[in-house]
């Protein structure tokens, strides 16, 4: 079940109350919500849960239902409250009978081609310097990873640690761009846009 569908199952007033509890500014509350959800998923995956996204949504669902009771009395970091509820959800999950893990189908050629097309599209939208960084960063030889990173960093006039961070930040932007592109291509044609 998708997170959006799960949220639709929640009563709208519970979800609104949750966002309000997180932050009076709805937009900022939405960002906090996304961050908390990401953290829950990361932790549940690290604990080896096979359905971390579902368990994270279940956690948020439970918190949303309780906000009405706790919002007046709860003091402290609200995110930590999610962590406590998630532990309960996780314990319940561990008591459930283990389901066999479904075999993931291999990526079909069409999906692969779509990702490649979107990558080209998003690379073209990168600023020249960013593109140079990402190109050099990914063209390195796996055996000589560290040495070559130092070499590339020297060429770009930055430290190796800075190069790594810059490359990963650009990679993050590319990821967002590609995901957006894939969504668009699923609904229509791939569009060329402005520089990322």
């Amino acid at each position: 079940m998708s997170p959006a569908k799960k949220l639709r199952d929640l009563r709208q007033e519970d979800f609104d109350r949750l966002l309000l509890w997180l932050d009076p500014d709805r937009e900022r509350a939405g960002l906090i919500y996304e961050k908390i959800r990401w953290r829950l998923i990361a932790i549940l995956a690290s604990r080896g849960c096979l359905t971390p996204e579902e368990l994270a949504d279940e956690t948020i669902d439970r918190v949303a239902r309780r906000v009405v009771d706790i919002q007046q009395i709860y003091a402290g970091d609200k995110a930590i409250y999610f962590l406590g509820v998630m532990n309960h959800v996780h314990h319940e999950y561990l008591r459930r009978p283990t389901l066999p893990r479904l075999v993931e189908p291999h990526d079909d050629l069409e999906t692969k081609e779509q990702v490649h097309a979107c990558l080209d599209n998003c690379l073209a939208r990168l600023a020249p310097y960013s593109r140079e960084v990402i190109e050099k960063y990914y063209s390195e030889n796996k055996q000589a990873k560290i040495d070559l990173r130092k070499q590339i960093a020297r060429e770009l006039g930055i430290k190796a640690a800075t190069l790594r961070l810059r490359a990963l930040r650009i990679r993050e932007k590319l990821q967002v761009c590609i995901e957006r592109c894939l969504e668009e291509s699923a609904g229509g044609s791939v569009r060329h846009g402005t520089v990322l």
Partner: protein
Amino acid sequence: MFGRVRRRKREARYCFVNDMNTSQTFQPRSEDSIRRFLLGQLEPSEQSMFEEQLFTDSDLEDRVRLAEFELADDYTFKRLTEGEANSFGEKYLLTADRKQKLNVSKALGDRFMAVSRPEPRARIYRALPLLDIRQMTWRHAIAALVLILIFVIVFLARKEPQIVERILPDHFKQRHHATPTPQEMHHAAGSAAPAHSDESPVKPVHESPVVIALTSTNAIDQGPVIVLPSGENAVARFQLFIKADQEGVYRADLLTFAGEKIFYADSLKAYGSGPSSISFDVPVSALKSGQYEIRLTRTDNQAKRRVAQYYFRIQ
């Protein structure tokens, strides 16, 4: 019963101490901890510490997000150990978001690794910039070195030819061709024979033999006086002149004054037009000071007649 309780207490205390040690040394923000968290490889105590930190530390969250990309890249480019790769499949690749990250990593690998693969040598040079002989500095240095070498070789060849001779292989060496001049010991008939000495210089062993040209004579005292070169392997080449049109096969016998035969050469043939000559070599070691006679006999006819005799004296 009490002993078992005490042991349990000891074990509990031991576990606690261990946890304390872990909490003291564990660095949730280190790259290693982040990586182990993503692969589900943290110890239980480390895991709970990390989770709490992740919920309160935005910077740590940011780093974990970036580490997710790096881990997907490392898996794609086969930089993970076997254990890490297994954990990657079991503990990391559990969400749609991470699977998409892996897809993008693969696409990036296909896009850029493929471009850079055809030039592994160039990569080595990039990794070792000081050894990159394509650099302009290296080119100039090599060109200067080649020029210096050429100057040195030319200088040596001109000033010290013996060094060049020593270095050069045998087939490149200039050969010394000995061009001995036949010395005809010819004396007018009836005239007093002058003391005739052969002035042939003493030559090295490997050089051409000394040529001693002799004409036939009946008088012993008319024979030339010859000074032979020294050396164990020195050779004297006797060139015996015969009358024209005496083609045939000959035998030459070398005898001492006492008539003792000390050397002979068989199957000799005349060569040359006009006055012909017959040549044969005698080791100098066989000749001592004294008077000698060479008897030339024709051997290609049944008569085997003596054709001529030649006299000379070794000084």
